[in-house]
């Protein structure tokens, strides 16, 4: 991978911020966009914009085709069997809520159990917590092991006939841990439970094969994989989608409306009420094609190298505390850390002054913060357009942070 050439595809990466070249290391929050994505959206509005699935004129055909091409690109991207299994949503959060308000709402009963891991983002925790509260069901939380990996033994001991649903992050947005989803799913299925995989962090970085993972639901957010904001997707097995009631209702999701009856549309349109975000879908397709042109194996291999280098260099910073696995083969390019006696917000501000963008705070994963006994962490997260030189700049800035705060008494 020719990173210097790749970086030129991303207009924002050449920005100067606070008199320094931008070092963008907040990719777990959102990624930057290549020109092909920006152009795809601009082209839509300049050349063929119309509503989808409605008009009988040429522009409507073109927009509808582009929208559906995106669904096909996404199907291929996650290796789903059919485009009928791909529902466009706003983001991963909306996709999880869709499951919670339809399938889970109809399935979970008092006394049932929902199992999630301690590593979940609030988006794969709060909807289940609310549902359990409403239904008189229980949420059980799988701890992580001391090295920040998934505790399979704890999980096995929690599974029972009461388990109806297992929610698991494919990749933790804090630890970066890549969880053994295939094994988790296989065990859940033996217990008779369905599995929701939160792929918001994994889909941008590692090859996704929902057939191989054998999960029942998989969700992702477009903006974390070079796409625009406001577009995400739910993958669900056809049998589930067929059995589920619609989530939102209105236009587009119906086949026929009479004075006394409503017939829902076929899959996946039954779950896409209202004019969809076709702009987002068209941008997402350009993002998917860009990722495929680089080669997803190449992306994965380069990011692993970057993560290994990041871990090695950051561990040399005096007083740094790194959370999650330090074995690069067990994680993606996310490194959460703190510095002794220095709050993560102060780290964030000092780094910002050096042109470095990182995240500081609870990362929408407060159960994990509680588990670690901290209220906040700093987090550097990489994408394929980052370089080892940028990691060097980060490490130098962290050392400077340490100096500025002196030695804590």
């Amino acid at each position, binding site marked *: 991978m020719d990173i210097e050439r790749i970086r030129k595809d991303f207009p924002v990466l050449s920005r100067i911020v606070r008199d320094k070249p931008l070092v963008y290391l907040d990719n777990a929050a959102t990624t930057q966009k290549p020109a092909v994505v920006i152009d795809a959206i601009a082209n839509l509005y300049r050349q063929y914009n119309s509503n989808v699935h409605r008009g009988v004129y040429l522009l409507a055909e073109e927009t509808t085709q582009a929208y559906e091409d995106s669904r096909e690109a996404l199907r291929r991207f996650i290796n789903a069997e059919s485009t009928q299994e791909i529902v466009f949503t706003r983001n991963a959060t909306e996709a999880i809520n869709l499951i919670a308000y339809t399938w889970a709402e109809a399935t979970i009963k008092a006394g049932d159990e929902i199992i999630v891991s301690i590593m979940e983002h609030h988006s794969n925790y709060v909807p289940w917590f609310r549902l359990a509260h409403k239904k008189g069901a229980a949420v059980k939380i799988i701890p992580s092991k001391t090295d920040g990996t998934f505790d399979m033994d704890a999980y096995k001991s929690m599974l029972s006939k009461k388990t109806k649903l297992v929610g698991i992050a494919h990749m933790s947005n804090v630890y970066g841990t890549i969880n053994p989803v295939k094994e988790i799913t296989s065990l859940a299925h033996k217990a008779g439970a369905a599995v929701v995989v939160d792929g918001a962090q994994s889909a941008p970085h590692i090859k996704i094969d929902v057939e191989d993972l054998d999960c029942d639901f998989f969700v992702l957010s477009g903006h974390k994989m070079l796409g625009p904001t406001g577009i995400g997707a739910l993958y669900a097995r056809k049998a589930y989608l067929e059995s589920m009631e619609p989530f939102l209702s209105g236009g587009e999701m119906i086949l026929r409306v009479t004075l006394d009856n409503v017939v829902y549309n076929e899959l996946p349109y039954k779950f896409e009420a209202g004019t969809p975000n076709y702009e987002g879908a068209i941008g997402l397709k350009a993002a998917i094609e860009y990722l495929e042109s680089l080669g997803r194996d190449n992306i994965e291999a380069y990011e692993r190298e970057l993560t290994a280098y990041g871990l090695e260099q950051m561990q040399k910073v005096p007083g740094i505390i790194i959370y999650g696995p330090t074995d690069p083969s067990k994680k993606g390019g996310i490194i959460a850390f703190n510095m002794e006696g220095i709050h993560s*917000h*102060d780290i964030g*501000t000092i780094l910002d*002054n050096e042109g470095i963008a990182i995240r500081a705070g609870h990362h929408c994963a407060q159960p994990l*913060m509680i588990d670690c006994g901290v209220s906040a962490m700093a987090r550097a997260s990489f994408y394929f357009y980052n370089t080892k030189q940028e990691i060097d700049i980060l490490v130098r800035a962290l050392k400077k942070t340490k100096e*500025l705060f*002196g030695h804590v008494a």
Partner: protein
Amino acid sequence: MSLEELFKEIIIEHYQHPKNHGHMEHPDAKSEGSNPLCGDELQMELCFDGDHIKDVMFTGNGCSISQSAASLMTEAIKGKTLEETRGIMDEYKKMLQGNSYDPDILGDLEALSDVRKYPARVKCASLSAAVLDQALQQKK
């Protein structure tokens, strides 16, 4: 913008060695507040003597800005009348909002003047004023 302007020595000093830190036995007023998105937390306790603030203590958790601001604020208002305290808080808020203010009234609190150049951090510095405001409302 140099970092030394924001993270002045006095700020680091109050962060690492806060003044008036802890609890009092019989506070007349107690209040707490947090910045839920970033996790800064602050609790304040006040003891009054007529219209004077006889004693003030705080505890908390968070960044250097939020915690040093609380420490500096307690120093600034201790022994002051309620009216003087209101005056200090008004000037402090003006400073954080980027308006002109009277540095003589603020004293050491002026160390936080550069926070306004970092809009994301203004809420860190504002927390102590908000928590103090709540505690003062309990004094009727």
